[in-house]
């Protein structure tokens, strides 16, 4: 219909692939995604560095925020999943939580509006990193064979069923965990980005349409866009929290002695 001639959804490459700025064409090409990740690292590092520079017993200013973040990770994540002996993981989990949170928040910041986790680079690397870490902790705790046994043979299973249970448990604990960790973060961010782009394109198209009666209808997708931006804020924080708490759960499960 000629009414909607301009309602063309951009091809998905335009939404997620960005032009290289430096080192174009090489594997270390620097584009918008890479810049967002660098800024996230710099922000998180700056936050904790300035908080610790003139550390006082009664925190003020930036130190308040840093201490709140560390408190949240310790009480809400580490003590809930790993207990007291997991407290040595605090720096790692705070770094992961902070980095993923800032990367996700860039989705709703004007003029940037792209979450660095909408590309599979960091989700895949983060999941791989967590996989190496929880397997290393498990092997350190139980020894290699003992670790495999504790992960694949649940207690109380009759011997005859072990033929089926061991491959399923192996698949679930060693393959599906990192895969789902990566895909959960990646797909949440990509889906959020696509939703925001859809409603933005729709409201712009209706607003600039040729037929005048279409222009006031553009208020509806614009309102939806505002609501979705708020929802994306929730999803950004939630996904960072989920990634971090699942890291804690996996490390705790790998080092536990229940079986």
């Amino acid at each position: 219909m000629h009414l909607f001639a301009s309602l063309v959804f951009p091809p998905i490459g335009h939404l997620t692939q960005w032009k290289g700025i430096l080192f174009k064409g090489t594997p270390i090409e620097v584009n918008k995604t890479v810049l967002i990740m660098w800024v996230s690292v710099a922000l998180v590092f700056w936050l904790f560095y300035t908080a610790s520079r003139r550390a006082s017993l009664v925190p003020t200013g930036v130190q308040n925020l840093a201490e709140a973040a560390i408190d949240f990770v310790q009480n809400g994540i580490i003590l809930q999943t790993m207990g007291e002996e997991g407290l040595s993981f605090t720096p790692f989990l705070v770094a992961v939580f902070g980095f993923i949170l800032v990367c996700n928040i860039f989705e709703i910041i004007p003029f940037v509006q792209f979450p660095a986790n909408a590309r599979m680079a960091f989700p895949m690397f983060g999941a791989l990193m967590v996989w190496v870490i929880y397997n290393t902790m498990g092997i350190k705790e139980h020894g290699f064979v003992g670790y495999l046994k504790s992960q694949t043979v649940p207690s109380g299973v009759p011997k005859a069923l072990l033929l089926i249970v061991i491959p399923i448990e192996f698949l679930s604990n060693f393959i599906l965990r990192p895969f789902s960790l990566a895909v959960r973060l990646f797909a949440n961010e990509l889906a959020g980005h696509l939703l925001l782009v859809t409603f933005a394109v729709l409201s712009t198209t209706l607003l600039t349409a040729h037929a005048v009666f279409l222009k006031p209808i553009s208020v509806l997708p614009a309102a939806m866009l505002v609501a979705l931006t708020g929802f994306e804020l929730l999803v950004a924080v939630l996904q960072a929290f989920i990634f971090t708490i699942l890291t804690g759960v996996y490390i705790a499960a790998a080092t536990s002695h229940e079986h």
Partner: protein
Amino acid sequence: MLSLLADSNVTINAQEILKGLGAVGAGIGYGAAAVGPGIGIGIVVGNAITAMARQPEAAGMVRTTMFLGIAFTEALALIGFVVFILLKFT
């Protein structure tokens, strides 16, 4: 649409048929993938509401566990979404 077929100017291209079938498959795939997690999340949140109503002091812990459960079940729906994107756009 049938009148289109009767029109002698319209040629049936095998590639376009495949593209159309791919789009249909992608849509059905995601639709089927969204059923399970939808029901699952409903069950998780419903039980969380019951728990919070029975014991309001435990609401914080229940809420945290509820979010964890939602993330697990939502991951399956999102894997379906990724498959849809892959089929439709590559």
